[in-house]
């Protein structure tokens, strides 16, 4: 994987493998690419990894005062594991002199039992070459060598290799089902219901119209801005050229665009002044003519005796606008216009659905 494609560290937590101890083959642990964002984080394919879980034969051993170094071989590679001794292990078993005396042998002696327990613990942490070790911990690189800092480690008793066989087949299954599958965070949004993709499309169009202060447009003008919703859709065929038959994503795009425009019309955000072959959509908020027409109607009619007191009802305004401006203005469009006029203090609502013009 190209380092540029590395998942941003903010998103690492979204990968469940990141917070688990990954059961990788030792060869993969040794060859994982290190992250360029954070040290001691590695990438197996697209998955960020920092903790691993390994089972293998001890083929190398070195003991220090505070820790053991075990070389662990799982049949695919050998990795050095730094295993810290816990406190009871550092206490040498020098107090061997305290053997139970004969008269105490049959009674329960706590000190002896504790010592037995410690001995049993020790045998689990002190391994010899050829014994099986299970170790979990963080992957580190020190002196150009990749190694593991064990957080847990213990000797595994496996006299008939049942544990090793099971481990090998489990690991292969984990690789096939999880580690080798790429992490697709975009898939999460793509798999959402079509309703949300429709609402997303409407939002995109709304944002676009607002940002660019578009006053009118034709559907193919805004087709491209919905393109990101269809990652696999090829470039839209140039004008005058029919889209290639069978490109279902492009068809989906057209359907989505149509649905989104219908939704925007229902909401009154856009409207078609003239219903003709040429699909021109007017943006309500940017249509100065419509705004002026509505304002004029209210100003003129408010002077009339009939409306002087209560103001003009919305349906009266609607029918006037339809006569004067366009038959296709819907109530939703008018409501938006009235709302914006009222926000600018051009008109005043006397009560619900009644509007008047304030004459100074």
């Amino acid at each position: 994987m190209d380092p540029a494609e590395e998942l941003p560290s903010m998103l690492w937590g979204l990968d469940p493998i990141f917070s688990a101890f990954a059961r990788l083959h030792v060869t993969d642990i040794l060859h994982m690419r290190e992250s360029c964002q954070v040290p001691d984080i590695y990438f197996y394919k697209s998955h960020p990894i920092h903790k691993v879980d390994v089972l293998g034969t001890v083929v190398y051993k070195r003991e220090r005062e505070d820790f053991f170094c075990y070389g662990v071989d799982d049949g695919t590679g050998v990795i050095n594991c730094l295993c810290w001794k816990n406190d009871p292990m550092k206490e040498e078993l020098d107090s061997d002199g305290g053997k139970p005396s004969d008269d105490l042998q049959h009674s329960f002696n706590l000190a002896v039992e504790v010592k037995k327990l410690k001995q049993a613990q020790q045998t689990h942490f002190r391994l010899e070459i050829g014994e099986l070790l299970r170790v979990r911990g963080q992957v580190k690189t020190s002196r150009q060598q990749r190694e593991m800092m064990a957080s847990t480690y213990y000797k595994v008793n496996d006299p008939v290799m049942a544990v090793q066989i099971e481990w090998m087949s489990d690991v292969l299954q984990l690789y096939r089902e999880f580690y080798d599958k790429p992490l697709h965070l975009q898939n999460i949004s793509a798999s959402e219901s079509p309703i949300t993709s429709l609402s997303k499309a409407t939002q995109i169009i709304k944002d676009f119209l607002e940002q660019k202060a578009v006053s009118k447009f034709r559907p193919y003008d805004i087709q491209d801005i919905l393109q990101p919703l269809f990652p696999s859709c090829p470039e839209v065929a140039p004008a005058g050229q029919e889209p290639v038959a069978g490109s279902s994503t492009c068809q989906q795009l057209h359907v989505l665009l149509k649905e989104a425009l219908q939704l925007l019309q229902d909401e009154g955000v856009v409207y078609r002044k003239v219903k003709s072959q040429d699909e021109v959509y007017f943006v309500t908020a940017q249509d100065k003519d419509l705004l002026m027409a509505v304002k004029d109607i209210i100003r003129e009619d408010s002077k009339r005796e009939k409306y002087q007191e209560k103001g003009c009802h919305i349906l009266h305004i609607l029918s006037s606008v339809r006569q004067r401006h366009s038959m296709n203005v819907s109530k939703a469009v008018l409501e938006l216009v009235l709302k914006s006029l009222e926000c600018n203090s051009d008109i005043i609502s006397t009560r619900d659905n009644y509007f008047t013009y304030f004459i100074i």
Partner: protein
Amino acid sequence: MLPAVAVYYFPWEVNSGALQDGESVRTFGSKTNFAHFSRLTQYEPEKSRASLTTQHASKEHHVVINTSFVEPFNPIIGAQYIVLGEIETAQGVDGVRVCARVLNCVDGVNIALLQKVINEQRSFFRERRPDLWSLLQRSRACL
């Protein structure tokens, strides 16, 4: 220094042409390590020499083991053992000899299951990592 990785080999692959061939043995010589398993049939402590035998495809396969690094051990004639060590050529031995680093008694192991999982692992690496696989293939080609 960590020893090199011990890759699983089947006993019948050890004495197959690839590892027997003078050149490749020299190339891999002490570097080619492997782990394999079979039944202990003979042990001569005075020569530090043991022999592991296994049957495969109606043929008996012997692998000679140099046990000088793992002595003393408790030889149980007829028990299954797993050996991890380096290939070495020695005089007086027909084929190659394995200098054991680890010789564990695993009597009772489910050999069929072990073979199955080793084959699965091999095919997994063959699909993904042709580089690692090429090493294994040298021995398999002669089967």
